[in-house]
């Protein structure tokens, strides 16, 4: 018997056929992987299943009965709970309030029983390895902890189906293990799980079944163990297995040390409020320097401080030998620093504007004479970058907000590159990006470094960090606790440094 199934669903957005005659079935106790490139339609399928979107065609069946969920709440009441791709909680409310939103325990008077709510929240979260003040605002928690709260939220209700859209993209290794423990438990209780991720290792570790989407169409569904890894990737990308095998999975060349000795970026003694303490490092042209550490180690703040977006109390920043005093974002960009923020939705893209406007945003003065914009110049640049980054869209005039996550990320990168920067600061550049695009981004980073740029790379993916960087600066609690160089740049030594510092 199937728990949840759809037959022949289609969903059209203006200009895009996001789902085209897709069928999908989930059995009780099954962990079902949903994979595909960025924009393949995974999130859309999930939203159709959970009542966020109404499909244009197709039938939805739940526990054998045809159903139609008008709102996510309907789906939730019926026992389908979801962790969406972007953390979807309420940052200004407390952790406990988030956890119990809409189902707060009440006293006999009908008032919310806060004491009980806090107590239960503490207990529940402890089960997920989160020990935090449950009365603190959720937004003050690191992203990973927020994701765990979202997970707890989804699993807490008496669900029969749990949908997870890229739950691990902002989790650290320890948290990932906790999550897998939870999944195992759900699996044993006969709950069906739909699991979306771009991380192959994870899929093979926990999933039973796989459904592959490409360009909104179903290309394969079956047991995951029967499907070889290269074949899965080939199906996803729509390429030949032999091509994939030849190119491999990581495209980093492995040579990221630079010969030139004068750093293009030099940070010394950077301190900021209570978050950053005396951080120093340098990046030479052609070098990729990784910033390692656990979530909350202060990597993002370091990057933002360099980019002029986080207040600096002490310390010096030099770009190409020229000091950047009292950095502001305007000065930083002018000095040749380009920053890709961690939170693409809130700080990266401008969703209401077109791809074209987004890419041209930082270089408008160069695209204009006497303040008048030249569309021809912009078109040329936009066209070049859309091709180079292989941005998949209806055209340069499509709203960025309507693109899939991966393509939004590419638009963002295109904006950075268009400024012709000397230093690139990349905060989780491949988070939520499919293997194909990930390889492209990684290749791009390589290529840019080879062209002489200095790159600072933040990634929670240890493998990516190690393979992509020539040197890794390890942070903890806002301070440098170690630097890995040369042959020392390995996953093992990275984890060891983090662990050692933590001890």
């Amino acid at each position, binding site marked *: 018997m199937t728990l949840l199934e759809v037959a022949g669903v289609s969903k059209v957005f203006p200009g895009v056929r996001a789902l085209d005659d897709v069928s999908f079935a989930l059995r009780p106790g099954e962990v079902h992987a949903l994979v595909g490139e960025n924009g393949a339609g995974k999130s859309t399928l999930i939203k159709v299943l959970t009542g966020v979107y109404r499909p244009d065609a197709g039938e939805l069946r739940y526990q054998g009965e045809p159903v139609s969920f008008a709102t996510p709440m309907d789906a939730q009441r019926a026992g389908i709970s979801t962790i969406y791709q972007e953390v979807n909680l*309420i940052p*200004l*409310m407390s952790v406990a309030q988030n956890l119990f939103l*809409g189902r707060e325990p009440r006293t006999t008077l009908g008032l919310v029983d806060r004491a009980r709510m806090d107590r239960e929240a503490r207990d529940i979260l402890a089960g997920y390895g989160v020990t*935090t003040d449950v009365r603190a605002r959720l937004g003050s928690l690191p992203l990973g902890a927020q994701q765990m709260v979202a997970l707890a939220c989804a699993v807490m209700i008496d669900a029969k189906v749990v949908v997870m859209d890229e739950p691990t993209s902002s989790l650290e290794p320890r948290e990932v293990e906790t999550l897998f423990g939870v999944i195992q438990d759900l699996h044993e209780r006969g709950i069906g799980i739909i699991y979306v991720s771009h991380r192959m290792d994870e899929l093979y570790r926990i999933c039973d079944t796989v459904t592959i989407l490409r360009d909104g169409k179903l290309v394969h569904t079956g047991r995951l163990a029967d499907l070889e890894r290269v074949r899965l990737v080939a199906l996803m990308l729509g390429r030949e297995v032999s091509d994939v095998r030849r190119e491999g999975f990581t495209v980093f060349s492995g040579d990221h040390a630079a010969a030139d000795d004068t750093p293009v970026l030099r940070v010394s003694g950077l301190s900021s409020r209570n978050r950053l303490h005396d951080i120093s490092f340098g990046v030479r042209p052609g070098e990729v320097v990784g910033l390692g550490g656990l979530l909350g180690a202060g990597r993002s703040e370091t990057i933002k401080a360099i980019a002029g977006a986080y*207040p600096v109390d002490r310390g010096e920043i030099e770009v190409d030998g020229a000091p950047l005093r009292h950095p502001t974002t305007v000065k930083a960009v002018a000095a040749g620093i380009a920053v890709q923020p961690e939170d693409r939705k809130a700080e990266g893209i401008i969703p209401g504007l077109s791809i074209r406007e987004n890419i041209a945003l930082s270089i408008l003065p160069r695209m204009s004479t006497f303040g008048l914009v030249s569309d021809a110049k912009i078109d040329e640049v936009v066209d070049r970058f859309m091709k180079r980054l292989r941005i998949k869209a209806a055209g340069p005039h499509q709203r960025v907000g309507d693109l899939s996550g991966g393509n939004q990320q590419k638009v963002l990168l295109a904006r950075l590159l268009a400024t012709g920067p000397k230093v690139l600061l990349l905060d989780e550049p491949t988070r939520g990006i499919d293997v194909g695009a990930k390889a492209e981004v990684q290749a791009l980073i390589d290529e840019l470094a080879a062209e002489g740029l200095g790159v600072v790379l933040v990634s929670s993916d240890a493998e990516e960090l190690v393979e992509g960087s020539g040197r890794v600066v390890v942070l903890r609690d806002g301070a440098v606790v170690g630097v890995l160089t040369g042959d020392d740049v390995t996953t093992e030594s990275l984890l060891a440094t983090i662990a050692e510092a933590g001890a």
Partner: protein
Amino acid sequence: MTVLAVAQRRAGHAFQRQGALAVLAVVVLIALAAFPNFRSPDNAATILVAAAPPMLIALGMTFVIITGGIDLSVGSLYVLGGVLASWASQYGFVAAIAVPLAVCGAIGLLNGALIAYTGMAPFIVTLAALLGARGLMRAVSDEGSTTYIVQNDAFHTLGTGSLLGIGNQVWLVAIIVLLGMVVLSRTRFGNAVYAVGGSEDAAALMGVAVRRTRIGVYVLSGLLAGLAGTINAAKLGSGVTVLGAGMELDAIAAVVIGGTLLTGGAGTIAGTVAGVLLLGVIQNLINQVGDLNSNWQQVISGAFLALVVVAQTYLVRLRRT
């Protein structure tokens, strides 16, 4: 996280929340020292009675603003409520209260439904309601020329009588404000209000009835504005038609001074109470100074508003560092 850090953050939050209260305390202390007339208990009672209707309006506005909305129609609903209450008082006490509440609640419902179901901006929907409700008020009062006189003694007493030396309406408003606090901080509806303002999408995905919550706050705001007009009519003894202009902006100013974010998702009723009282006390002080030209009064009010809001912004920022 250390215990100390938690305690520190708590203190910080309290400070942010009670910023308006702190400013109010300072202003009152200065006034007590500087103006002998300010000290009389009668004066305090006058301030409280005058603050009663705006307090109700600001209370409703607080709910609306926490959801990230705004309600510009309250000034018109206030006048309409007063006119209807006075007119209906000829049919008895119950009618005098029920009629304005029913009509103003219905207009609030219309506001809420339009905002929740069509996705139109609250600013513009309630701006239309501002015009529409004023038009309705004029339509029921011969273009504003008929002033209905309150004809029910019990109803009149509601506005003019007092208990333990404190005006009836002050008691009434105090009770409603306390109820409002409980609703906002201790009920599921209250949590939903914060959730909708904090992140509408997330709230919807987490199963909060977003539409119902939105409609709820506008109905509440309409009801409270109507009730404010009603108790004011009971006090004045008639349905004065030339009231209410600019009342919505006063209410918004009070709410903002009280520390509620116009972006939604955060705010407290205690802050709003302090905000309303602060505006009332400033008004009273300007009068205490006496011979001030009316135009200067407005200049000073504007400057003071800017000062308080700017000071608050910096206080909050100071706390964050």
